[in-house]
């Protein structure tokens, strides 16, 4: 397991008295794309927030590049090389497109991604760079959110529901750009409601149900029925 970049072990997360994650363990290798699927409230976003340090797990360990992230501030964790595209994008609404991107690079990690490179991948953002970020269309806003995450040159990228609220054509466009985005050998965990698409793009997958892992493995190793049983818990 020497190349695994992230190792989560026996993670338990609570919101007050309510337990959102019941002992989850998973690993992801360098350069791998892992799909995380599961119905609403399964705990996918909570897992992401724990990895980023936005919520503190009650027990269990998270190791990134062999180092524990326990007790580190979200800022420190970003400096170590984890970035997230949060659910619902959450762009800074009083910042322009370009300012959002610049802020994404606040930690100044060295790497391939620069403002110029983001503009090369998403030319439309260059045209709109001085617009307030939230004045853009949904798809363009998602590009800003992706670009903002890339600007920190992460080694692990967490993508939470890229297609949320977007029209099918726009979703298709974004997924077509995905190889370009991930081409640099970044490890990625992708949360996607559209299970078929998630399986298509990923190497491995993890299916969550009510805070537990109900199925995981090679993305092409299971039948539709098996996955659907794990997804709905039937």
């Amino acid at each position: 397991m020497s190349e695994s970049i992230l190792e989560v072990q026996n993670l338990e997360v609570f919101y007050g008295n309510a337990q959102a994650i019941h002992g989850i363990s998973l690993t992801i290798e360098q350069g791998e794309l892992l799909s995380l699927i599961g119905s609403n409230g399964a705990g996918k976003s909570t897992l992401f927030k724990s990895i980023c340090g936005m919520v503190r797990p009650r027990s269990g360990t998270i190791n990134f590049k062999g180092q524990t992230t326990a007790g580190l501030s979200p800022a420190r964790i970003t400096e170590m090389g984890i970035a997230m595209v949060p659910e619902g994008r959450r762009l800074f609404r009083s910042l322009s497109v370009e300012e959002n991107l610049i802020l994404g690079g606040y930690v100044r990690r060295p790497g391939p991604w620069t403002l110029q490179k983001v503009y090369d991948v998403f030319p439309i953002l260059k045209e709109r760079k001085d617009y307030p970020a939230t004045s853009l269309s949904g798809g363009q806003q998602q590009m800003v959110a992706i670009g903002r995450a890339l600007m920190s040159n992460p080694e692990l990228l967490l993508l939470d529901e890229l297609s949320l609220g977007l029209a099918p054509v726009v979703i298709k466009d974004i997924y077509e750009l995905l190889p370009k985005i991930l081409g640099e050998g970044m490890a990625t965990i992708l949360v996607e409601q559209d299970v078929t698409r998630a399986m298509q793009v990923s190497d491995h997958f993890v299916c969550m149900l009510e805070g537990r892992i109900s199925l995981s493995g090679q993305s092409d190793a299971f039948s539709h029925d098996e996955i659907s049983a794990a997804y709905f818990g039937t």
Partner: protein
Amino acid sequence: MEWINVIVQGVLIGGLYALFAAGLSLIFGVMRLVNIAHGDFIVGAAYLAMVTITMTGLHPLLSLVIVVPLMAAIGYAIQLGLLNRVLGDDILPPLIVTFGLSIILQNVLLTTFSADSQKLNAGALEIGSIPVLPGVDIGYMPLLTFVAAVAIIAGLQFLFYRTSMGRAFRATSDDGEIAQIMGLDNRKVFAWAMALSMAVVAVAGVFLAIRANFDPFMGPSRLIFGFEAVIIGGLGNLWGTLIGGIILGVAQGIGAQIDPGWQLLAGHIAFLVILAVKPRGLFPRID
């Protein structure tokens, strides 16, 4: 002519009120905190200037070189050591803490400097004036205050919208959680915002102390003037504080012209009327 003079003087004093308001508006914009001790810090800065002048013999305006960084450092420390620990979803704790600070500060000033009122002497600057119309003279000091207010608001505006510090302020205000995963440290961002607010407070305090008598208990009414200017101008709008300050100053001037007892009342009434007809102020920027 008399009325023109009232309005001109009202506009000029509005600059001072804008200085009271700008610091308040700034920290509310960044961290949704209303510092009830804001006015007391203004008065505290006036006393700090007084002590500096007695010790060094500097001119009151030059004392800013010492008072501004000192107040900023105090603001930074109070934010890191105290206010950050009570900021959260519940608005009560920060209100009570700054309320407590207000009472403590008033009484520290009272025991240290007594209740006697004080004034800073700026020499010739206080007497000189420019005649603009027959019966309308603009004093050097009121003019200087107004110019300082415009310059400071322009500076804050630039800092807020054109610098990386301002970007950090806006991002943290928009979404503190996400700002943190971009690598910003909210607590430090807040501390810088408070430092900046207190730097403005320092300038306001020194100008206040040159223009009028001050005593340990005049803080709360300065807080109220600043607050009224913020609301009149519109939440989150820095230039709005200048307009708010001017409206307040002119209203007070007109009130005083009718009957000296009506000076303060007229200002408050102007504020309440604007609150009644435009609850979000004249030029709101945030909700």
